[in-house]
C-alpha cells in the first residue's frame, strides 16, 4: 500500500480510537480512495493518491463524521456536571476542613480518603479534590448517557420569583453580606491582636505556630487587613452612592498597597523551609491578586469613560 495512504488511514484510525468498528471503517475509506483514484486518473501512484486524499478531507474531519451521534455526556445532563460537582466539592471541602482542624484522617466509603495534613498541604489538596469530584461526576454522567435511558436526575426545585423580590429585600441582601464581612474582619483583627500574625503553619490555637518571621508577620498581616478594610469600606459607601468612582478609588488604593508590598520584599520571611520555596508561591499569589484588582481598576475606568462620553454626546 502507498505510504501516504497508509499514514492517512493511520491518522484516521487514531482519531477513531473509541469506535468499535474502526477496522471496517478504514477498509471502506481505503476501498473508496483507491477506486476513485483509479477511475479518475487511470492509475494509482503516490501523486494521484495524494490528490484524492486532499479532496477527501483531513483525518480528524473524516473521523468526526463517523462520531456525529456519539456523545460522552448528553446535552441534557451537561448542566448537572457542575451542579453535582459543586455539591460534592462542598461536602468534600467541609470534611477536609474538619479533618484539618481535628488533625485526623478520614475515610468516607466508597470514594473519599482525606489524609492527615497541615494547612499548606491542604492548599494543594483543595484543587486536587475539585478535579477528583469533577471526574467522578463526569464518569457517572457518562454511564448514564451511554445507558440511553430516560433518566431524570434529581435536583431540588427552588421556586423563586426574582422579579417579585422587593427593593427592601434587595437592601437586606446587601446588609447581610456587610454584617458577615464586618464579623469576619473583626475576627481577623482579633486574631492579629492575639497572635501577632494572620499566617499560621497550623490551625491549632493551643500551640499556634506562625509561618512567618515576626517582621514579615506584621508587614503582611497589616497589608492584608488594609486590603480587606478598603474593600469593606467601599462596599459600605455603596449604600450612599452608586458612583463608579468608589470602585475606582478602592482598586487604586488596593493597588497602591500591593505595590508597596511587592516593592519592599522582606528577605527570608518564612520561619523554616517547608516542602519547597514558598516565596515563589507567595509572589505568584500576590501577582494574581494584583492582576485581578488591576482588571477591576481598568473596568471602572472604562465605565467612567463611557459615562463621560454619553454625557457629552447626549447632554
Amino acid at each position, binding site marked *: 500500500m502507498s505510504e501516504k495512504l497508509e499514514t492517512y488511514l493511520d491518522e484516521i484510525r487514531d482519531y477513531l480510537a473509541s469506535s468499535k468498528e474502526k477496522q471496517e471503517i478504514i477498509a471502506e475509506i481505503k476501498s*473508496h480512495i483507491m*477506486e*476513485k483514484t483509479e477511475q479518475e486518473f487511470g492509475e494509482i501512484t503516490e501523486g494521484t493518491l495524494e490528490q484524492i486524499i486532499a479532496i477527501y478531507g483531513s483525518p480528524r*474531519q473524516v473521523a468526526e463524521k463517523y462520531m*456525529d451521534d456519539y456523545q460522552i455526556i448528553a446535552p441534557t445532563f451537561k448542566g448537572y456536571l457542575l451542579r453535582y460537582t459543586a455539591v460534592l466539592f462542598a461536602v468534600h471541602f467541609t470534611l477536609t476542613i474538619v479533618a484539618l482542624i481535628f488533625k485526623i484522617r478520614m475515610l468516607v466509603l466508597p470514594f473519599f480518603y482525606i489524609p492527615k495534613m497541615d494547612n499548606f498541604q491542604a492548599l494543594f489538596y483543595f484543587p486536587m479534590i475539585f478535579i477528583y469530584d469533577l471526574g467522578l461526576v463526569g464518569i457517572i454522567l457518562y454511564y448514564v448517557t451511554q445507558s440511553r435511558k430516560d433518566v431524570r436526575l434529581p435536583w431540588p426545585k427552588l421556586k423563586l420569583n426574582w422579579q417579585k423580590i422587593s427593593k427592601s429585600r434587595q437592601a437586606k441582601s446587601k446588609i447581610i453580606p456587610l454584617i458577615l464581612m464586618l464579623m469576619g474582619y473583626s475576627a481577623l483583627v482579633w486574631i492579629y491582636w492575639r497572635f501577632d500574625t494572620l499566617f499560621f503553619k497550623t490551625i491549632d490555637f493551643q500551640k499556634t505556630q506562625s509561618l512567618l518571621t515576626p517582621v514579615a508577620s506584621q508587614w503582611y498581616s497589616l497589608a492584608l487587613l488594609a486590603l480587606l478594610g478598603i474593600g469593606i469600606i467601599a462596599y459600605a459607601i455603596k449604600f450612599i452612592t452608586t458612583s463608579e468612582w468608589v470602585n475606582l478609588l478602592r482598586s487604586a488604593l488596593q493597588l497602591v498597597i500591593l505595590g508597596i508590598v511587592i516593592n519592599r520584599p522582606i528577605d527570608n520571611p518564612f520561619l523554616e523551609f517547608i516542602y519547597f520555596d514558598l516565596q515563589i508561591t507567595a509572589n505568584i499569589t500576590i501577582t494574581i491578586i494584583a492582576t485581578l484588582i488591576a482588571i477591576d481598576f481598568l473596568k471602572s475606568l472604562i465605565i467612567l469613560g463611557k459615562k463621560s462620553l454619553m454625557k457629552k454626546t447626549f447632554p
Partner: protein
Amino acid sequence: MAIDISPFATEMNRGFLQVLVLVLLEKNMYGYAMVKQLEEKGYTLEENTLYPLLRRLEKKGLIKGKWDVSKDRPRKFYVITKDGRTVRSQLLAIWRQQNDILNHLMEETQNV
C-alpha cells in the same frame, strides 16, 4: 458581505441525502458508483459524508452491506432492506407533504 450558505445547505442536505440513498439502493451498489450516479444527476456531495451515512443506515437495518472480494480490489456493496423500503415510503410521504406546504406558503406570500 456575502453570507456563506454552506452550513445551512449541509443541514438541509443531511435529511435529503438519506432519502436519496434509500431510493438509489433499490439496486445493489457500492459507494463510489453511488457518488458518480448522484453527480450525474447534478447532486454533488462531500464524499466523506456518504460512508458515515451508509454505516448509520446499515446499523439501523435499513440497508445491508456485503463485501465483494472476487475482484482485485474489495468493494462493499449495499442494498435496501424490507425495513428500509418501509422507512423510505414514509420519508417520501413526509417529503411530499413538506413540498406541498412550502408551495402553498410561497403562493400565499406572493399573493400578499
